[in-house]
């Protein structure tokens, strides 16, 4: 059974939520989106659910086809996706919600966050995943003072994630130099399944 979802104009993470829900009862779901962030989020959903994703760009949108590959049927949405949760169970998650450290003086906050990321890159332990949102995504651009340290963290297999909505808002989607795009759906899952959350 197939289903087509028109998610053009839908804000993140609606395309992912609706597609995942549809996959509970359909073998193939075609989701039409209108931006690359939604496309990447759907690809990652397919990955997490062990499905196959293909896409075709037409004049009226990007058609993303997600098909079950013969793996176990997707569980109802009331039950958390076991594979996604298992990956993050016991993990340490760091949340970076601004491009400065602390409140008060932003110039001082910039100094502190530079010092912090240097220390994070040079010493152990480190978190398993770092998610950036709101002004925190500015730290991921090529001209950021901490980008070299973030790249070191990425080389150490620390997952670097940036909220797609925030990248769009700050118009820096095309200039980030580290990390991959995520959505609120995944951010929520990461927060609820982490053993420890460090809020910077």
């Amino acid at each position, binding site marked *: 059974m197939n289903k087509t979802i028109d998610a053009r104009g839908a804000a993140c993470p609606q395309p992912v939520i609706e597609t995942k829900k549809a996959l509970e009862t359909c073998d193939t779901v075609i989701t039409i989106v209108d931006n690359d962030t939604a496309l990447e989020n759907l690809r990652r959903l397919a990955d997490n659910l062990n499905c196959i994703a293909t896409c075709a760009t037409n004049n009226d949108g990007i058609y993303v086809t997600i098909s079950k590959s013969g793996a176990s049927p997707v569980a109802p949405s009331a039950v958390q996706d076991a594979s996604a949760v298992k990956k993050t169970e016991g993990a340490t998650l760091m949340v970076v919600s601004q491009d400065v450290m602390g409140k008060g003086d932003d*110039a*001082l906050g910039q*100094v502190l966050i*530079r*010092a912090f990321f*240097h*220390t994070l890159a040079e010493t152990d332990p480190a978190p398993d995943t770092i998610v950036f949102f709101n002004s925190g995504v500015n730290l991921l651009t090529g001209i950021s*003072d901490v980008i070299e340290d973030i790249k070191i963290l990425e080389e150490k297999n620390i997952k670097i994630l940036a909220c797609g909505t925030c990248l769009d808002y700050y118009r820096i989607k095309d200039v980030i130099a580290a990390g991959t795009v995520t959505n609120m759906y995944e951010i929520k899952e990461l927060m609820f399944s982490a053993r420890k959350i460090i809020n910077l």
Partner: protein
Amino acid sequence: MTTHAEYHYVLFRSVSETMWADKLLKSKSVPRKLIPVPRGISSDCGVCIRLESEFVECARNELASIGEFRIIGPL
């Protein structure tokens, strides 16, 4: 990759002076990194500017107007 033995560290009297120096060196395109003061130098909380050896003299000249500072290294 540069080893620790090739770094020098510039210490100032205050965070504010460190920030001013960082801004000055940035405006002069001197490669540097603002980092916490290494534990081998001090156990106090503070930040300093780390330079690769080949940029020490250049930085010293540019920072002449700042006032007091110390350059330590290599560790």
